[in-house]
């Protein structure tokens, strides 16, 4: 067991205090690559990104480049995108189709299954045993309703166990309609800040929206000639103003939040289609998931919003993140709604998006302040809605708080993060989590339900 947990002294989940050192330290960052990214289930592809045998795409798990490949039998496998000879990046295109992958350094050639099939001058210059069994390093993969996740750690829990109650929330984003999801737009950009900012926020922070994004809500919703908001648009503002809702958090670091009345929609045709199909969604998911949830994050770095934004946030050193964002539409949506989703999201949540830009500046400044010694010593306040979480409240599975603005999911995310950063092996972590959930559930039962702030 590792002697030192490098983040424990900076994170106090019970009191809701965190020091910014965890966003700044190079030592912590290097350990995150090992203890968080190399042991977690990370989104690496959606099956529609790999339409046929030989389709490939690149992605990353932490800083490690991943090559995801559709196999001749239709299955999807994922490899470290690194030639076994000199460690060269094997595939250098973002996506495409291939019969095999030849390294551009010495010409070593691998088939779609990652097996070395040709080495120039191999017969004359290598003994057969020195090339035997050479193949690309392969990771565990799982396919959940078309979303492909990979994990390097053979001892990590199954994806289903890792998701736990989060699956119920995840489905509200990806399984509202039969037929699954498809990609209608892709955006990639970098931000000068720590990757955890874009984990914390989709996990736990609907609170920032009305301040950070007030300018976008001011101008993007259509108005009548007299300057008042159109009726349907006024409803979107009401959603944002009425903070009834809740927040879910998971022992494995996932989080989700919702407004009871749904997520504010900026484009009328998307809203109208949603209203038109409410009955179908109710039948499919039940009455409590008719309205899309606002935000969620599947730990470590797979973010989603109820407006069909999905993204991974790749770490790029302690002071930089790289966002890969996909706009996805339900396959079942009519073409004009898919087009509306594409345009809505590039105008709101891409690098040029009118909501996204403002997050960028806030995070950049947050990061730059942490250059300061005193700034990193501050015990920042993550205390919103403490000690109000309950299990299986109303219809909501798992641990929730009954308010859309809460930092409970952030605290639980950092709890999980701290546990991972301890370096304890997965089987021990799973045991610790199970025991904690039992204790928390018991504590909840001992608290009178009417003591809960509703």
């Amino acid at each position, binding site marked *: 067991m590792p002697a030192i947990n490098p983040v424990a002294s900076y994170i106090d989940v019970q009191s809701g205090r965190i020091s910014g050192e965890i966003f700044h330290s190079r030592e912590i960052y290097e350990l995150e690559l090992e203890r968080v990214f190399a042991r977690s289930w990370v989104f690496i592809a959606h099956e529609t990104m790999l339409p046929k045998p030989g389709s490939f795409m690149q992605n990353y798990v932490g800083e490690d480049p991943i090559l995801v490949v559709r196999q001749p039998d239709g299955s999807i496998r994922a490899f470290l995108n690194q030639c076994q000879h000199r460690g060269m990046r094997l595939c250098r295109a973002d996506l495409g189709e291939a019969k095999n992958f030849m390294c551009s350094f010495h010409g070593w050639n691998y088939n779609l299954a990652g097996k070395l099939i040709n080495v120039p001058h191999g017969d004359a210059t290598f003994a057969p045993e020195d090339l035997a069994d050479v193949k690309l390093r392969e990771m565990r993969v799982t396919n959940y309703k078309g979303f492909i996740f990979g994990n390097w750690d053979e001892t990590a829990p199954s994806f289903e166990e890792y998701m736990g109650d989060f699956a119920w929330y995840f489905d509200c984003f990806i399984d509202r309609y039969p037929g699954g999801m498809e990609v209608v*737009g892709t955006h990639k950009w970098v931000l000068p800040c720590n990757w955890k900012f874009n984990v914390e926020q989709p996990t736990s922070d609907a609170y920032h929206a009305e301040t950070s994004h*007030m300018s976008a809500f001011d101008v993007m919703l259509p108005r009548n000639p007299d300057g008042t908001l159109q009726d349907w648009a006024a409803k979107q503002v009401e959603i944002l103003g009425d903070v009834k809702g809740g927040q879910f958090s998971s022992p494995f670091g996932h989080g989700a939040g919702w407004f009871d009345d749904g997520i504010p929609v900026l484009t009328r045709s998307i809203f109208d289609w949603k209203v038109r199909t409410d009955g179908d969604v109710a039948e499919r998911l039940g009455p409590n998931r008719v309205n899309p949830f606002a935000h969620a994050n599947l730990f470590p770095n797979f973010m989603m919003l109820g407006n069909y934004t999905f993204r991974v946030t790749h770490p790029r050193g302690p002071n930089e993140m790289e966002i890969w964002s996909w706009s996805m539409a339900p396959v079942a949506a009519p073409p004009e709604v898919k087009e509306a989703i594409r345009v809505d999201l590039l105008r709101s949540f891409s*690098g*040029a998006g009118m909501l996204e830009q*403002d997050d960028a500046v806030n995070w*950049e400044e947050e990061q730059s302040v942490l250059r300061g010694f005193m700034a990193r010593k501050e015990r920042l306040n993550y205390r919103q809605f403490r000690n109000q979480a309950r299990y299986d409240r109303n219809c909501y599975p798992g641990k929730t708080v009954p308010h859309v603005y809460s930092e409970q999911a952030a605290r639980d995310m950092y709890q999980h993060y701290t546990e991972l950063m301890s370096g304890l092996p997965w089987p021990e972590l799973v045991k610790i989590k199970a025991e904690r959930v039992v204790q928390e559930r018991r504590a909840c039962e001992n608290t009178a339900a009417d003591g809960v702030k509703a």
Partner: protein
Amino acid sequence: MKTDSHFFSKYRRPQSSLASAADSYAVTQFLFAEADLLDSWRFADWLTLLSPDVRYWSPARENRLMKDLEKEISPPGTSAHFDEDFDMLRQRVARIDTNKAWAESPPSRSRHLISNVRVFNHSGERPDVYEADCCFHVYRSSGERSQDSVFGRRIDLLQRDSSEYGFKILERTVVFDMATILVKNLSLIY
């Protein structure tokens, strides 16, 4: 190389279709004046340069194998940084005017450098319409220490009119020279 299938090949114009020196001069001065409006934060004035039917589009790009070169730039209806009509651009300007658009409040300092300008007569033989092809470098400094640059190519369809600036922008295609956008946001007008 399948360079003929690349996105830019459809914008290749014969030298014989270059506009006259006088027309080229007028269009070039229009582009410089526009850059000055943008860098002087006169966005409401900038809106007057746009046709009510303007289309402002900036496709995304990907790293593609040479055999897939024609897919390197995303086609219309797919990944884009901007895909705007007049009303959408008006919203972007109105957002800055709220003083609560934190990406540009406090405002950044920008400089639009416009170069390699080539002005062609319209391929559809509309005598009052020109195709202006240029390269740009947009430098931005914001806050105390943040600075970045984006480069790219811009292809405009411009119509002569009687307004102060002499032209209206009918179409603008902005192609950034980046696949992954290596700046924190695209909060300016390009």
